[in-house]
């Protein structure tokens, strides 16, 4: 860890990275009710994903992602943070 240089570039600024936002528990409950799913049925995102670390989300949080869509302009999708490694 000591050898790791502090990364200066913020991944959130990259043009490939869409906007990620952690939902509050109330919003999360509303979203789940609207979609009619349990949290695990959402697509997952790893807790050590660079973006998740950058926004400081915890496992169990639900993240709202504003994707640039190829067909629909802009679309909101949700991912649940899971505590398992990317590798």
């Amino acid at each position, binding site marked *: 860890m000591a050898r790791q240089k502090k990364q200066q570039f913020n991944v959130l600024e990259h043009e*490939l*990275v869409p906007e990620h936002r952690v939902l509050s528990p109330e919003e999360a409950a509303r979203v789940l009710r609207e979609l009619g799913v349990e949290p695990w049925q959402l*697509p997952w995102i790893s807790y050590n994903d*660079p*973006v*998740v670390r950058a926004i400081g989300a915890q496992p169990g949080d639900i993240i709202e992602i504003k994707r640039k869509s*190829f067909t629909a*302009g*802009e679309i909101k999708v949700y991912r649940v943070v899971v505590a398992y490694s*990317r590798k």
Partner: protein
Amino acid sequence: MSKLYDPQLLIHDWEKLSKLIEPELEEAKRRLPKRIYDELVEKLQKVASEYGLTPDEAKEIVKQVIDEYEISLVEPGEPVGTVAAQSIGEPGTQMTLRTFHFAGVREFNVTLGLPRFIELVDAKKEPSTPMMTVYLDEEHRYDLEKAKQVARAIEYTRVENVAKEVYIDMATLSIVVVLDPVMLEDKGVTVEQVKRVLERLKLGPVRKEDDYTLVIELQVKEGYINIMELNKLKERVLNAKIKGIKKIKRVIVQSRRLPDGREEYYLLTDGSALKEVLEVKGVDPRRTITNNIREIEQVLGIEAARYALITEMKKVLDEQGLDVDIRHLILVADIMTQTGRVRQIGRHGVSGEKPSVLARAAFEMTVQNLFDAAARGEVDKLLGVTENVIIGGIVPVGTGMTEIYMRPQVEPVRREER
């Protein structure tokens, strides 16, 4: 439409019209995707200003657009995965088996066509031709010399790349490095820099014999010379790093014309090291990308990897002149990134992690899958398509998705009837 049309009510002013049909527009905004909604508003605006629209006409248009959109949606039970597989597979048969593509003055090849596509869906650790497109920041973007500066800073340069010859002088026990002035100029390295690099190897004092010749005087233990070891030392000298990023083998400067008429320079690299390159001065870290999906996943996260996967797949198909709807590719990328990491479509990924034993066995390694499942005592609930094809059940696709639920009404038994 004749009923709706009334010349008296024609409105040319969009502001006024949009006020009148506001509830309909609100409804459309809620139910339509952003792009379609924007297009609808834009077209309404255009028509209103050119020909005029009555509020009733406008309302009817909005209503019909919503209806048309909702009819075009995929219905529950539609086998989208199968359709996507067919839609990619059929044009795939027409792809060239091995294509190389040359860009720029110096030959620079990139895998394209079927091999590249297979690479993408297999989620390979490293593509066979890793490549980066490095964009430059405001300062370095419009100047060829400054662009070259950045290129030199990231290109991996070793002593071997700038030396004309390197040999061992047995008489004086030294390694002689003769530098090539042309290469030094090309790579932007000074003789002093090379000298410092050689000193850092700690093989012995470095002496500058003439303008382009450096001599390392080796410190050899008394009376003992090992030729093998001397050759090893020579190798170390040749491989000594002068500057650059290890994985970047070559960099070429490219340019393209921007819409405003200015020339923008950017770099193409042979080899990929996204994390390191993003930190280099002069690089625009916001736009720089690589064709290595795994690397994007590591550095920029799963969402960026998903996006890159789609664009890379589309690029391969477009380059081959194949017209595949992008939604099929989106579906593939969504499935591959569903678990938060990039999974391949195959044994070690999507197909191998299916919950159903029979579906896995039907894909690859039938016997082994069945053995393993038996050993673990797995149960197949027969919910998927493949399982039901195997056992001859009703496949849960389209109308087969429906099931009958019965709630039998039990009549309360009355005492008298006993």
